[in-house]
């Protein structure tokens, strides 16, 4: 069933969608919620193996970091070793968004739209200090960390990160995929449809993230913040 096909109604919220999924009897089914079975673990293994070794990156390169991203794709570092030589310039065929470089507010809606256009399952990497936290550019025109705009799976630090750093980040994504399971993917990876075109963070969170030194010193692990009262969101619950 589609997420938007309720007659004339508003787009469903995530909780409603999950409730609907359960009402349709998905729970505990072959690939349903919860309890992994013998079958699902084997299927998981095969699916994750396939997914992780043919990640197609969508290079969202804007500034200096993009040059390092190109260097990692070129002969010396050779991303093709990891099944990622096919840079997918169309978001619709891409699996992992690599946001490399500075993102000003003027570019923010473009980034958001490209993320919305990518198919599930999708992952994202924030490459470099600017994408992760605004870097040294704490100015009127810069987004202070793209995690206020889209969810981020892996942050690669550096200004710019070396190609080895980016490759390590991509391998962390592979590692993440290894631990995913189809039986909980539906819950974990679904994005609330009402979030499309919206900031990833609400107003309070943006302030917390974008304060002076905010993002970089409060980061706990992956997308969660230490010591803020931010609500837990299902898309951040990835293992």
């Amino acid at each position: 069933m589609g997420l938007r096909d309720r007659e004339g109604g508003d787009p469903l919220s995530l909780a409603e969608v999950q409730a609907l999924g359960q009402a349709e009897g998905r729970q505990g089914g072959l690939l349903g919620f919860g309890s992994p079975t013998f079958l699902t673990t084997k299927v998981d293994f095969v699916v994750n193996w396939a997914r992780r070794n043919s990640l197609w990156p969508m290079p969202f390169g804007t500034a200096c970091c993009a040059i390092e991203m190109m260097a990692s794709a070129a002969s010396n570092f050779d991303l093709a070793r990891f099944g990622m030589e096919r840079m997918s310039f169309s978001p619709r065929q891409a699996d992992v968004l690599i946001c490399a470089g500075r993102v000003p507010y003027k570019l923010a809606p473009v980034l958001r739209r490209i993320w919305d256009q990518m198919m599930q399952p999708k992952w994202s990497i924030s490459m470099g200090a600017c994408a992760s936290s605004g870097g040294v550019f704490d100015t009127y025109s810069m987004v202070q960390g793209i995690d206020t705009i889209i969810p981020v799976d892996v942050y690669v630090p550096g200004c710019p990160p070396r190609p080895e750093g980016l490759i390590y980040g991509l391998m962390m994504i592979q590692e993440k995929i290894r631990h995913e399971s189809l039986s909980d993917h539906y819950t974990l990876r679904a994005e609330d449809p009402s979030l499309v075109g919206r900031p990833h963070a609400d107003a309070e969170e943006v302030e917390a993230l974008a304060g002076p030194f905010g993002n970089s010193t409060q980061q706990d692990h992956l997308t969660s913040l230490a010591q803020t009262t931010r609500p837990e969101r299902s898309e951040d619950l990835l293992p």
Partner: protein
Amino acid sequence: MDENGSAFDAVERGPEGSQRPTGAPRSGNGDPAASHPSVTALRARFGATVLHHEVQAGDQHVVFVDAASNRAVLEWLKDDPEHRYDLLVDVTAVDYGGGSPIQIVYQLWSVGHKRALRVKCELPLDGLSIDSVVPLWKTADWLEREVFDLFGVDFRDHPDLRRILMPQNYAEGHPLRKDFPLRGRFSRAEQTRRALSQDYHDDYTPEALEVGGAPGLEPPEPTGSIDGPEEAP
């Protein structure tokens, strides 16, 4: 934050702290007696329109002209065979802060004569309007748009005076003015919200939207302003 404010407040306030009370300096640091053939000729040709001449950084000649006759002066400099400044290198502006006038700076170079000249015009803050030089040099098109975007100077007769670097719906003002805080006027949350609600029709000119027979797609009304209710706390 305590009463005296933290270091961040100083960052927000801007560099006015280091401001000398004099505002725009009016004396060169080079040899004042040095002469420049074009300046001598300008004085002879335009008389009192040439307000001031100074030498900066050793050998760089700067001439201040009356803002009302900038185009006449520059046209003469461009076309007179003795001078022929055929390359307009740069158009920019300088705001010294503290209410002093904004300087428009034209940097000229003559390829044939291998000579440089800097022409400046001063505009008071309540009369930020000057003739465009796009009819003389096409280079000025984007450079003047940039000055308009970042300083809010109005260029009369400019063919397409729109914002160029900032989004069309940017409502916080003109960023390179000294009274503009480094982080902008709105809160980060408001800036994010506004950024994501940008309308792409803002970037199309009405004529462009007419292409392909799609009339009626009028650019939306601008929402909010600096004085509007959405100002950051």
